[in-house]
């Protein structure tokens, strides 16, 4: 691996983790769309910032953009509190407006400025190693690594300090407010961090990837975690995985890095959604299937039990007869009986089905349950 290759992966990794941290709380608050809104709306802040300070390279731009992020959050909350529209609809109303004002301003007044919409949407990670931080005649590596490293540290610090407060305000804002933990202040602090992360990241990776990285890894982690600590760590881990895998995908296919990272994020989420041990679709499907069989075996046991030691037992307790009585088709009835036999609930005795003691218990239990 060449040095620029390592540097690109480092930047991607740092961006991914920096996004995953606040993203976890966005997802838990069911505000994933907010990352979309903020990462677009900040364009307006950047443009206005450029008008004021006259250059694209000023820390003031970050402040201006972060303020637009907060403005977005405030507008969404205002519209939301009218009770006329749902939160996601409010988000959908606010950010296209702010984003298009930004786009119009660029088109009208900043045609000559280096701020094309392609770069805004997709960024260009591949160029990260060319923009370097130098001081005292020394080369300190890619500038993006330093900005994003700073953002990562800030996010991690915020989470570490206010972990318990964020957890409470997310799970039960009512209790948080009644205990004096100011959930609204925490909400805006979180939105501020989301904005700051989005602005800093979008220079390197563009706004689409910011959204993918803030929402994808936490959603993936959510499917696999029972504990918040776990979910945060897993989000970060998936972020790193997506970053590295995305980089090598782009390298192999010779396409945009941001694009493959976003695609990988989607793929990984899809795989986990299918395969997660508890909440995955396959696990759910198998659970339903198992329940279906268990239910069928219970029905069989109850049926046999009802006719045990009765005159018609000889007729009722045959596989063929089950079709008629329980409305099962032949092959299905045969498979249920096989299952019941292999579980030791039923015995076959020259063509007849007999309950074992265990089977009687199953029937008994099922009967008392209903």
């Amino acid at each position: 691996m060449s040095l620029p290759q390592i540097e690109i992966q480092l930047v991607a990794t740092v961006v991914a983790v920096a996004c995953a941290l606040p993203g976890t709380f966005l997802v838990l608050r069911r505000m994933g769309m907010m990352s979309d809104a903020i990462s677009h709306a900040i364009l307006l802040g950047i443009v206005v910032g450029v008008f004021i300070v006259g250059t694209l390279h000023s820390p003031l731009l970050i402040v201006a953009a972060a303020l637009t992020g907060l403005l977005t959050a405030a507008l969404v909350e205002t519209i939301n509190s009218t009770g006329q529209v749902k939160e996601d609809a409010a988000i959908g109303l606010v950010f296209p407006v702010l984003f298009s004002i930004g786009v119009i301003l660029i088109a009208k007044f900043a045609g000559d400025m280096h701020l094309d919409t392609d770069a805004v949407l997709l960024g260009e990670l591949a160029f990260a190693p060319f923009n370097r931080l130098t001081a005292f005649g020394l080369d300190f590596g890619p500038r993006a690594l330093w900005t994003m490293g700073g953002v990562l540290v800030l996010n991690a610090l915020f989470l570490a300090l206010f972990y318990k407060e964020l957890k409470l305000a997310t799970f039960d804002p009512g209790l948080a407010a009644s205990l004096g933990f100011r959930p609204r202040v925490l909400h805006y602090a979180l939105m501020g961090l989301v904005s700051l992360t989005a602005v800093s990241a979008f220079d390197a990776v563009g706004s689409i990837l910011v959204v993918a990285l803030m929402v994808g890894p936490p959603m993936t982690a959510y499917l696999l975690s029972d504990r918040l600590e776990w979910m945060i760590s897993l989000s970060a881990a998936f972020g790193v995985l997506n970053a590295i895998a995305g980089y090598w995908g782009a390298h192999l296919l010779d396409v945009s890095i941001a694009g493959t990272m976003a695609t990988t994020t989607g793929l990984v989420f899809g795989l986990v959604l299918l395969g997660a041990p508890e909440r995955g679709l396959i696990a759910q499907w198998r659970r339903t299937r198992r329940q279906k069989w268990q239910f069928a075996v219970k029905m069989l046991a109850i049926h046999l039990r009802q006719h045990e030691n009765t005159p018609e037992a000889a007729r009722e307790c045959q596989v063929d007869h089950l079709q008629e009585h329980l409305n099962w088709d032949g092959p299905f009835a045969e498979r249920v009986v096989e299952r019941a036999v292999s579980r030791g609930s039923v015995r076959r005795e020259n063509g007849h089905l007999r309950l074992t003691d265990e089977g009687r218990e199953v029937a008994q239990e099922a009967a008392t349950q209903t």
Partner: protein
Amino acid sequence: MPDADPALTVRDLTVAYNEEPVLWDIDWTVPAGTLTGIVGPNGAGKTTLLQAILGIETPAAGQVRIFGQSYEAARDRVGYVPQRGSVDWDFPTDALDVVLMGLYGRLGWIRRPGAEEKEEAHAALEQVGMADYADRQISQLSGGQQQRVFLARALVQEADLYFMDEPLQGVDATTERALFDLLRTLQQRDCTVVAVHHDLQTVPEYFDRVLLLNVRRIASGPVEEVFTEENLRRTYGGRVGFLRKNESPISDSASAPNRKEESRA
């Protein structure tokens, strides 16, 4: 310790959502050491009343005093059990952790709960019969078990005044009795308990005092004085079948007016 001041005084309280008053000019006093029920139809503003008292909603007008102090000053003496449906039970956490949240107020900002707090939380879970479920993911608890976890969380707060929003909602008859006994125990420890309650039939048995609420305060005071058919009719809009004491109860459903509870859940 008996307080000279009432546990709670509410004066001229009005709360509005979007200019629409949902609570109108409420005057209400809860003497210390009592067990008070709040009843009223769905949408009457019961939850809103508790939230306004606890500073979660900002009132349009009015005053709230807790043991003669402002809520901010008396915060440490107040415990809160929200309506069970108000939180996301799919949140990645376990029962013990939810109970620990009751201690966050005492810990203050930044400090995290330690071994001592965990022990307290365990003890509270034990009190509500949930010790075996301490590390169960909360979505895997039944509705009644979730309700008990919420109660345990209130218990660790060791408050003097408790506000509970339908603490007995969704629990079976045996559990209801056990939980109610717990409220009585609290009262015997000189705590004051205010609970929103939906089952009119058990009101006289469970509570000393009652507030009948439907946007306005219809009546409040000792159960035997204000829990009358006339007052109930005014609260529920004349659709309640309820007989006076000593007659057999016939009311089957008291919360008839607009059952939005189901659709919300």
